[in-house]
């Protein structure tokens, strides 16, 4: 039961990832729509992070094909690209399950590093920049403007000059997303962005994600545990269990899928009702 996606920004086909004797991802295929929020869900150890690592080049898949498509029709075979070229050329950015910020650098500096490749070209690979050519100054000003824009969206403007490591947890999550957005991606992959957030922070995160989809023409692929987030904002959900896809569809379809409730939640029968109730709540 594959969900039909008209204009996929990313297609994963027959993806397999083996670690020794463990098949962490097993014949996985799915599409991610260009302006959709797509959620990848599944119990702990289902292989979600591994899928992300394959998409973003941190792991080389054992088998399978991962294709990114731009509006221009250009395609990129991600499994053949170096990890750093995937955000740079194929424009697929990511965040990490354990936040990875440049803790000793300020919020603004973090956002500037996100624009490294643009600025490198503008500084003529440093040679122009070191002599203070005006072209670089202009590019730097633009980069600061873009950083300000994302700080505004993430609600971090007041903390622009504070060390990233000093921010509260929720702000760090948002900064990591803002920093990824500074690479101007076509697809943003978020690994459990709501993990550890309180309800208010979680609400702010939802707003940020919806804004990204609406305003920036960026597809979002997210791994999420929080049913409120998943049901509330996704257009399309893929459910993974033991590396296999067990369901793929709209939130309604997923909500009514008994195998999802049984397998994904992996709960005893008496708890199923409770969980169903939780999902119901999330949708409303």
């Amino acid at each position, binding site marked *: 039961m594959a969900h039909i996606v008209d204009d996929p920004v990313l297609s994963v086909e027959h993806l397999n990832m083996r670690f020794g004797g463990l098949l962490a991802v097993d014949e996985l295929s799915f599409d991610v729509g260009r302006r959709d929020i797509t959620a990848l869900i599944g119990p702990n150890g289902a292989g979600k992070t591994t899928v992300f690592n394959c998409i973003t080049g941190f792991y080389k898949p054992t088998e399978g094909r991962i294709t990114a498509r731009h509006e221009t029709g250009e395609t990129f075979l991600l499994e053949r690209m170096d990890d750093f070229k995937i955000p740079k050329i194929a424009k697929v950015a990511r965040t*990490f399950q354990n936040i990875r910020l440049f803790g000793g650098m300020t919020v603004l500096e973090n956002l500037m590093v996100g624009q490294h490749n643009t600025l490198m070209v503008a500084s003529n690979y440093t040679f122009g920049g*070191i002599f203070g050519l005006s072209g670089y100054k202009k590019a730097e000003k633009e980069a600061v403007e873009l950083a300000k824009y994302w700080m505004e969206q993430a609600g971090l403007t007041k903390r622009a000059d504070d060390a990233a490591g000093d921010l509260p947890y929720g702000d760090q999550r948002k900064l990591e997303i803002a920093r990824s957005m500074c690479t101007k991606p076509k697809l943003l992959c978020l690994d459990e962005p709501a993990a550890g957030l309180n309800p208010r922070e979680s609400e702010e995160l939802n707003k940020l994600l919806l804004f990204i989809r609406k305003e920036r023409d960026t597809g979002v692929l997210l791994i999420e545990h929080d049913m409120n987030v998943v049901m509330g904002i996704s257009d399309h959900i893929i459910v993974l269990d033991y590396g296999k896809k067990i369901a793929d569809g709209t939130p309604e379809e997923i909500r009514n899928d008994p195998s999802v409730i049984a397998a994904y939640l992996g709960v005893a029968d008496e708890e199923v009702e409770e969980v169903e109730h939780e999902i119901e709540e999330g949708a409303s």
Partner: protein
Amino acid sequence: MADTESTPSRPARHLDFSKVVKDLIVTTLIATAVFGSTIAFRTVSAAGGLGLEVRYDIAFYVIAAVVIGRLLLWIFVWSKPPGTSAVEMPVSIKSGLAKVSAKVGKGFGPTMLLFALVFPFLPFTDRYLLDLSILILTYVMLGWGLNIVVGLAGLLDLGYVAFYAIGAYSYALLAQYFGFSFWMCLPLAGILAAFWGIILGFPVLRLRGDYLAIVTLAFGEIIRIVLLNWYQFTGGPDGLSGIPRPSFFGLPFNRSEGGFADFFGLDYSSIHRIMFLYFLILALALLTNFVTNRLRRLPIGRAWEALREDEIACRSLGLNTTSVKLTAFAIGAMFAGFAGSFFATRQGFISPESFTFIESALILAIVVLGGMGSQTGVVIASIAMIGGFEIFREAEQFRMLIFGLAMVIIMIWRPRGLISTRIPSIFLKEKKKVSADMVAQGEGH
């Protein structure tokens, strides 16, 4: 901590007797093992060769001093109630110190620069002091160069002296074989060192942390051993002598007509050349500092610091970390190359002996002691270390001991170096310093 001091019902001092006795026994054993096997014996030249003098009495006094010292510590320092640390300063003093150091910090750079500029003309400056300051400035420059690699990019390089050697030999050999002048060789030496930085960097920079440190150490030694054994080309252990002295833009520093003194209508004095060398190394060091500060504000410099903070995050943002590392390595090497050719022209003679691992260790110690990434810290640490070496020259045998002790104390007192705060490379409204606990130290620390 300050509150505990003022509470009237302060808990009484208490000593856990059995714990103290146990500790003292252990102390005695350790002290006996250390001093009983060292101080207790002394080699003397006896009639038939080398004789052994036994000095149990001296060893005994030393051991006794250690044990009594430890006992006094127990009684007066460690007996405070738990929670009150003996070395903790009251909060008010601490914040006061922070304020003072912030004020000092602001004017420090310009004051130092001004002082460095007038220093050669001060009445008390003699040849000895001038020579010493040239040495210090050489280490400041090397420290600033290594700071790019270790402090900014967070790559632990234990073979930095190799590039210093390459710079020195480049100048000496180019001058010897092609008769190039110092001013021609200076940039060439930098370029050659940077080139070798890239050549060595390619295989080495795939490694991380401790492995990187060990392999850079090995590369440093390899370069030295090549210089030592390639007799026909480098003169091997004999070194290279007769390296041309620098001229003042074509005016040699000698008594001849058309020399520097003659041209400016001064009386000839050998101090002119030393002064010139002083200003030359000052200019080179300032160039290093200027370029580094400039690079820090460019994308390349931010990429270095980002690399130190988190390499994986860098890759996820599209930074080619290999080339980021290579540029840090190459630019650091380039400044070592400049410093090396200065060293060659100043000494007039070089041999592989000047480029041993100890030099690398000394430069690294300066960077770490100064506070990694801090330009001012490097200056203070160079003055303290190189100046300290001079002050304790008298104490010969104990010099290394004092040096080691000072390092240990500073590492306890300021584990992140003398100046451990980081100044952001760009700011929106206000330049706030980043405290040391936020800043990562990169690989292998």
